[in-house]
């Protein structure tokens, strides 16, 4: 039996239903991310687990006990907020010790536990500081320490890194995961940042309109998206209009160029499908069995990655490669051939998603 269970949980605010019968099982010690755009119900779900919202229907079980109606101060769950929410009138030491003091622990015991926590977050020398004297990253470390000081049954994090700089975000992300693994604490992590979710989770639940669209290990989510929405939401996808030539052999035609799907297609000859292939699955040259010819429309530098935009007929295709300083990139306007393996292709019904829109929007973050 799972340690944390959500059964058909529904949450409505007035006539607005935010969570629509969501079920989720999380094992003890597991790190699960709830990933989705704004308004998908991920934060509401977390707040119901914490007890700040009461489910309209369904039940929430922690350690086999139904806590749906238990007030938040008796759930023993540690929560970390996006805006840190440290008590401004207390030093770091007193913030971390707050929950222990409330629980009636003795002075020496509180101090010992606080010292442990300070060591865990590497902030021993900041114990006497007040929150306003700390950077955002430091404040969030303290908030994390405060949440786990009470040895909660589970740790709940609500977009804990969203207010931080990119560099600190990555470092703190790794620290959170390291601490979580060291303590073996069951964790639910809410984020809209897919890179964040994919990089630290045991499992990722992609949410949409109050339901889980797909839940699985990060590799599974990224490489085998179960629905068109997940495919479009996670990572970048090239979407190409494909006409079925030979369904049994899995041959299609894209912009007049014939490609192999690698498996038989459940479609009729002449049927229009949508072919999905990730930019990083493409490479320059004639190495793979599937080839698309086109002309370079532009180059974009995305840090460690270089993205070539290649015009194939009427469609723009993205190709991502590592930013190798020795790399000689084709010039804009130059004719190139892109190749990829049949395994890199997946297919969707036409109309399931707007052409290229998903690929273009991907880089933007939902606010």
């Amino acid at each position, binding site marked *: 039996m799972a340690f944390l269970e959500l059964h058909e949980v529904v949450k409505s605010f007035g006539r607005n239903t935010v969570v629509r019968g969501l079920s989720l099982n999380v094992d003890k010690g597991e790190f699960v991310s709830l990933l989705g755009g704004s308004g998908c119900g991920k934060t509401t779900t977390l707040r119901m687990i914490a007890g700040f919202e009461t489910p309209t229907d369904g039940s929430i079980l922690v350690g086999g006990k139904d806590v749906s109606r238990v007030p*938040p101060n*008796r759930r023993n769950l540690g*929560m970390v*907020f996006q*805006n840190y929410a440290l008590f*401004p*009138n207390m030093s770091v030491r007193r913030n971390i010790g707050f929950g222990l003091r409330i629980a009636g622990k003795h002075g020496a015991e509180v101090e010992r536990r606080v010292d442990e926590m300070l060591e865990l977050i590497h902030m021993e020398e900041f114990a006497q500081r007040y929150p*306003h004297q700390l950077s955002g990253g430091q404040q969030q470390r303290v908030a994390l320490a405060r949440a786990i000081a009470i040895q909660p049954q589970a740790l709940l994090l609500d977009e804990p890194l969203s207010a931080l700089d990119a560099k600190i975000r990555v470092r703190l992300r790794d620290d959170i995961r390291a601490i979580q693994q060291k303590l073996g604490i069951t964790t639910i992590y809410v984020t809209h940042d897919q890179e964040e979710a994919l990089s630290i989770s045991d499992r990722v639940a992609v949410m949409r309109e109050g339901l889980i669209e797909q839940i699985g290990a990060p590799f599974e989510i990224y490489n085998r998206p179960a629905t068109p929405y997940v495919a479009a939401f996670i990572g970048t996808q090239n979407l190409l209009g494909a006409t079925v030539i030979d369904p049994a052999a899995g041959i299609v035609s894209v912009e007049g160029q014939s490609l192999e799907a690698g498996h038989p297609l459940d479609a009729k000859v002449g049927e229009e499908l949508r072919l999905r292939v990730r930019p990083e699955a493409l490479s320059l040259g004639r190495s793979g069995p599937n080839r698309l010819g086109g002309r370079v429309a532009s180059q974009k530098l995305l840090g460690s990655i270089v993205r070539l935009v290649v015009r194939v007929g009427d469609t723009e295709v993205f190709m991502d490669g590592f930013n190798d300083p020795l790399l000689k990139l084709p010039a804009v306007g130059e004719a190139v051939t892109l190749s990829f393996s049949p395994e890199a292709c997946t297919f969707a019904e036409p109309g399931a998603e707007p052409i290229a829109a998903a690929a273009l929007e991907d880089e933007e973050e939902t606010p």
Partner: protein
Amino acid sequence: MLVPASSILVGSFQDSAGKFTFLNFAHLFAPNILDSYSITIQVSATTALLGGVLGFLIAYAITLGGLPKPLRSFMSTFSGVASNFAGVPLAFAFIATLGRMGLLTVLLRTVFGINLYDQGFNLYSFWGLSLTYTYFQIPLMVLIIEPALDGMKKEWREASENLGASPLQYWLRVGIPVLLPSLLAAFILLFGNAFGAYATAYSLTGGFINLVPILIGAQIRGNVLHDQSLGYALAFGMVIVMAVSIVVYTWLQRLSSRWVKQ
């Protein structure tokens, strides 16, 4: 600001002929004058406390209490008006409502058979005056504490609940300590506001209650008993009371806000 203050200082050391003297200050220690300082401080402190507590509760209700938004803007506007409603109109409004022949007094007597004045109530007494003062003290409190309450983050409360604290524990350990500097500042402001009030008290009690501002008024208005120099000394005494309360306030403020961003 400095010129009137220094003219009070100079005037309080002069007799009516303009010669230097300490006599004015000696007069301050007459029993009736000490009494009037005492009653003024009592009225000010009582109404500051009463107005402070009630105003705080109203401000809490309209900011964090989850009341509908239009009610909040209505209360803010009303507070802005009411906090400036003092003097003769306010006194008259209270006389017309709670005086011996006031609307409410008569209504209670004829309809409900309750005679307020037989029950010990008297509008022209210490408590009557204090009640009248709270009419502008409460809305003033609402206006000055509203921004402070707006600054209270919802997440502080949630974090404290999440860590096992009851609402009472939250208020004792987080809410009140965070608000304390603002509460102290508000109290001093309300105190000063009542301390200097003249017209309301004068028109309500007609000098029946000897507040210091009324006493000063009597000295400078030029009736038979007037002594302008004593008026100066009385005013100087008020400056001292306010100065002392501001020093105490500053000290408390420093104690209560060590953690505030400097």
